[in-house]
């Protein structure tokens, strides 16, 4: 009984240290984690893969530093998928804070491809293979405006170029030229693309979301409003798995590397809940004992 008594009275800072170690150890001693791909991620991958060559992939980078570790691997995996399959990409954000991270992901993946590229044709050129449209407030302006004319919403792109001067944008007018729009967001942005843009213009929408809001998105996935769903770091690891196995593209997989820590941390959390509850019920029964 003494052990349970002690275990259920641990000081908060000891709990923090236990969690810190549970997360750090698997990072220092990495173990290969096999990733099983579930249907929501497979559907998103296939939807992006099936984009015809006269349409583009639009990526809404709407994650900010708060959800960076879950979402950046998704953005990078999506960009690798698009550039490997020569699918043209238009990147944008509904908010200003995600811009810096969108630029970081775009720079990293274009760098990866241009280092491997052997000719002008198979390298990734700004304006031809991808454009970075940047941010325009308020969100309803791009949500509804891009159904009529993308260049009327983003007169200038992130770098300040006139968008109607970019070669790629000459054949991309509005949502009819978008194969699928994948919204990577730590909040409710994907729901807006469904409620406003899909309702008005019928554009296909996919979502990459933080695991916090996962349970609220499944209802829109079940109705088919979302063509696919990536949820949290696990969803990112699944997409990384598909990019590696389906496209034979081997690169650093940050989300998959973290799965060891994720496992250790989850087991630690479950242990805390169980110990806490055992201590609670033991105390409650002993208090009842005293009363009797």
């Amino acid at each position: 009984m003494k052990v349970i008594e002690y275990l259920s009275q641990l000081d908060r800072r000891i709990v923090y240290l236990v969690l810190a170690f549970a997360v750090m150890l698997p990072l220092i001693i990495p173990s290969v984690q096999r990733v099983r791909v579930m249907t929501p991620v497979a559907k998103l991958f296939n939807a992006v893969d099936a984009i015809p060559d006269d349409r583009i992939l639009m990526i809404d980078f709407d994650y900010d530093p708060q959800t960076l570790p879950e979402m950046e691997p998704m953005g990078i995996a999506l960009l690798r998928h698009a550039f490997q399959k020569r699918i043209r990409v238009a990147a944008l954000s509904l908010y200003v804070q995600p811009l810096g991270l969108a630029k970081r992901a775009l720079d990293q993946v274009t760098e990866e491809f241009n280092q491997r590229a052997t000719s002008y044709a198979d390298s990734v050129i700004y304006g031809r293979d991808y454009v970075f449209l940047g941010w325009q407030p308020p969100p309803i302006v791009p949500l509804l405006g891009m159904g009529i004319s993308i260049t009327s919403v983003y007169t200038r792109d992130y770098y300040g170029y006139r968008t109607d001067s970019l070669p790629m944008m000459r054949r991309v007018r509005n949502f009819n030229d978008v194969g699928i729009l994948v919204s990577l967001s730590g909040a409710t942005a994907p729901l807006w693309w469904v409620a406003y843009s899909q309702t008005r213009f019928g554009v296909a929408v996919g979502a990459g979301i933080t695991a916090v809001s996962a349970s609220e998105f499944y209802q829109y996935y079940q109705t088919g409003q979302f063509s696919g769903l990536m949820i949290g770091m696990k969803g990112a690891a699944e997409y990384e798995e598909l990019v590696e196995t389906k496209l034979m593209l081997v690169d650093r997989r940050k989300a998959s590397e973290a799965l060891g820590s994720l496992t250790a941390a989850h087991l630690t959390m479950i242990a805390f809940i169980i110990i806490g509850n055992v201590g609670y019920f033991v105390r409650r029964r002993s208090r009842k004992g005293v009363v009797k």
Partner: protein
Amino acid sequence: MNITHDPWVWISGLLTICILSFLYRDNPFYKFAEHLFVGVANGYFLTFTVHRVLIPNLFSPLFNEGRLFFILPFMVGMLYVMRFITRVSWLVRIPIAVTIGYYTGAVIPATVQADIIRQIQGTILTPSNFQAWNAGSNGILWSVILFIGVVCTLSYFYFSREHKGVLGVTSRIGIIFIMIGFGAAFGYTVMARVSLLIGRFQFILGPWLGIIE
């Protein structure tokens, strides 16, 4: 253990420690880091608002291309400044009314379509919905459970009658579905919060201290 020499990575590392110090207790380092965050984040916000919104969409059409129409949005926008002049501070209600009006109008059809009509479509008991699960004959059972769950959850949030009799039963079933839904949210939230911590340790152990590559 090759610790980095890039000054910016050291600044990031020290700011990370300032925030983590909140775990011990609220302290001046945490307050410094938090106020710096709000300051620099708003500096970033101001930069893009001016360079990528106001200049290309208001100042250059109005002053470079001389399109005088843009005087109108410019004037209405300036009404926001009236907030600081008490005698005419009511004028700030005009731009607010335009913004709130259009947004509130656009929300209604979007909500009716995405949150009501399409959600009803996904719940209706009909063969094509049964096959949508592509789980063979199980699909019928899944659709029926889903249907019952939606009906009972809705009955739990029904306030015009006491939860007695049939309504009592359905709302009891409803709360069970709600609790499973919250459990799912709880489980995924644990994954999300832990992932953020893993991301921070990937930075500290990687680029900063060089323990992992």
